[in-house]
């Protein structure tokens, strides 16, 4: 690794066979080789061919990122590895469920901010809300940050899913 190279964030999309142990292979590769996982999502995406898509956000120097992709590609059940960050324009989204507890002024303020962020109320009790917020990670971060002062109880986040812009498949 050359010291002049700086680390940057990359979103990597991996198409894999939906078989037992595949997630362990991918995650084990990251931990075993000392790479970093900032976010990871996985779900079956192709019923017919029984494929899953794993989206990983990682950070590293260009040499490390190249190495990560080569190592992933070497796993036998991996069909395709795409670096969305290098591969032109792409869109990223994340979903969070945010639970806020409070009454009176704070409760009203939370609801108003949720409206600004286009967060949906998916559960309401007399002293709590569960909001569903979707967007780029920094939007989700900001919303959660605002809720901290308004009785934030719990957060669940999906991690990033992403795809390329335009008509091409990933």
């Amino acid at each position, binding site marked *: 690794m*050359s010291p002049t190279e700086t680390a940057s964030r990359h979103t990597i999309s991996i198409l*894999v*066979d939906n078989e*037992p*142990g595949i997630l*362990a*292979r991918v995650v*084990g590769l990251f931990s*075993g080789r000392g790479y970093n996982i900032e976010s990871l999502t996985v779900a079956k995406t192709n019923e017919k061919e029984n494929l899953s898509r794993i989206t990983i956000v990682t950070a590293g120097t260009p*040499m490390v990122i*190249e*190495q990560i992709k*080569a*190592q992933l*590609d*070497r*796993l*036998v*059940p*991996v*069909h395709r590895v795409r670096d969305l960050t290098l591969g032109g324009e792409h869109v990223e989204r994340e979903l969070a469920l945010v639970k806020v507890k409070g009454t009176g002024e704070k409760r009203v303020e939370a609801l108003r901010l949720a409206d600004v962020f286009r967060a949906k109320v998916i559960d309401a009790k007399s002293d709590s809300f569960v909001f569903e917020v979707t967007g780029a990670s920094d939007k989700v971060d900001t919303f959660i940050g605002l809720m901290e002062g308004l009785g934030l109880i719990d957060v669940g986040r999906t991690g990033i899913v992403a795809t390329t812009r335009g008509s091409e498949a990933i």
Partner: protein
Amino acid sequence: MKPEESATTGADLLVKALIDEEVEVVFGYPGGAVLPIYDSLFKQNRLRHILVRHEQAAVHAAEGYARSTGRVGVVLVTSGPGATNAVTGLTDALMDSIPIVCLTGQVPTHLIGNDAFQEADTTGITRPCTKHNYLVKAVGDLARTVHEAFYVARSGRPGPVVIDLPKDVLMNKHEYEAPKKPVQHKSYRPQVKPDPKKIEEAIDLIQAAKRPVFYTGGGVINSGPKASKLLTQFVHLTGFPITNTLMGLGAFPASDKQFLGMLGMHGTYEANLAMYHCDVLIDIGARFDDRITGKLSEFSPKSKKIHVDIDPSSINKNVRVDLPIVGDAAHVLEEMIRVWKARQPRLDQKAHKAWWAEIEKWRGRNCLAYKQDKETIKPQFALERLYHHIKDHDHYITTEVGQHQMWAAQFLKFEQPNHWMTSGGLGTMGYGFPAAMGVQIAHPDALVIDVAGEASIMMNIQELSTVAQYRLPVKIFILNNQYMGMVRQWQELLHGGRYSESYMESLPDFVKLAEAFGAVGLRTGNPSELDGVIQEMIKIKKPVIVDVLVDKAENCFPMIPSGAAHYDMLLGPNDRAEKPISEEGMVLV
């Protein structure tokens, strides 16, 4: 035929699949979970089973078999401890890219996860130490999985593959599925043919070079004997110098004057300096391991680097290269030779002459020199005499790990591929003896010698029982200095000579030990007796342990201390005072 008539048990299917994959020998050890397989083996005579005394040895034996034949080595072990004992061997095979299929027993599917007797999460444990692994959950998947496993193990960059077989799967019945040819895997398709444009670019660089060097490794050996022939041809066509990694020895004839010897930590002065000063470095099938590069920031700083590798993840991992070529060594070399011959390039003869003159000057340092006296046998002398006596026999060499291994690499000459088996990447003490058994099984009439240290040999000494059972005339040539020599050498150089736990107390009497197992034991500590002992060893058609008592204080030179650059080599014991080892280097292994 009704389906139930053609259906056979999983164990029988497995044996049939192994036979279809042209397996001749299985190295293994039985146990509860694999009893159905052992029953199937009992009822046939196509597959030969070699009963080892420890599962680690089964894998090393299969590695020796694989590396000396170019075929896939097959291992059969039981669940739990059988599988965990195999882990070191699997990791060794992964690091050195040796094709192995390891069949492990497993508790029946309904007990998996219940902490059943002799249960271990074998696929979990072996995931990071195999190229791939499988848990077969239904007998209907068994035959197809075995065929796929063989394909994965031997293709691309070879490696070990584990198939975990629950006992109920082995006893259930299903119809057999023959291997499909050619194999088309849905996601795994290694690239073997290089990009033709890159070959042209490589030849551009090669023909313009003024100070070139070939640096080739185990990838050439793994590509098959044809790759070694092509390499030799191409190196002769160019007239360039060549150096080999530890794993690459034998791909180019050691006696050839273009050969600079091994490079790296204990490589020759001329090879390492050629790497440092070259302007074009042609890497074929070597992976810039830390034992090769030394200090990365000063590794071959003036060169354009061409890297040919079948594994894209080996490229730009440690060293940034200028021209990566993904492909199989034989295919790439064939293309390079074709383009070279078509172009008939005119080389800068003057520059090449000057380059060779410089190399000859470095060679003139005679970096492997040692002083033999009349009293004690120097380990280097023992190996030189060994080579003198075996060179006209069809011989194979394996080693354990340590000083003796490096001396063997330096002092024995490897003229052809697949005749040198050593644990390079993992550095597994205890590798050499079982590996030699595997080689001997594959080549019953050859002279197979495990060059060993007295410490390493103790790590799989139980296999004396195996060689006795199968009458394998393996020779164990121990360079006995009563120390873990390499550990002692590092303690001397890095830790003020505090020899913490590196002295071998209470060694066995190796002669009596050999006799206890029905082998022959020979011993000498006298330089004048050495030739006679070696000749006797060769003559005896039984397993032999030769206990050569060598100089206890001898160190292995040249040495690039960890963290140092190629030009910072220690050439002998007197070199050390001026070159203290950096703190940065102390941290390195």
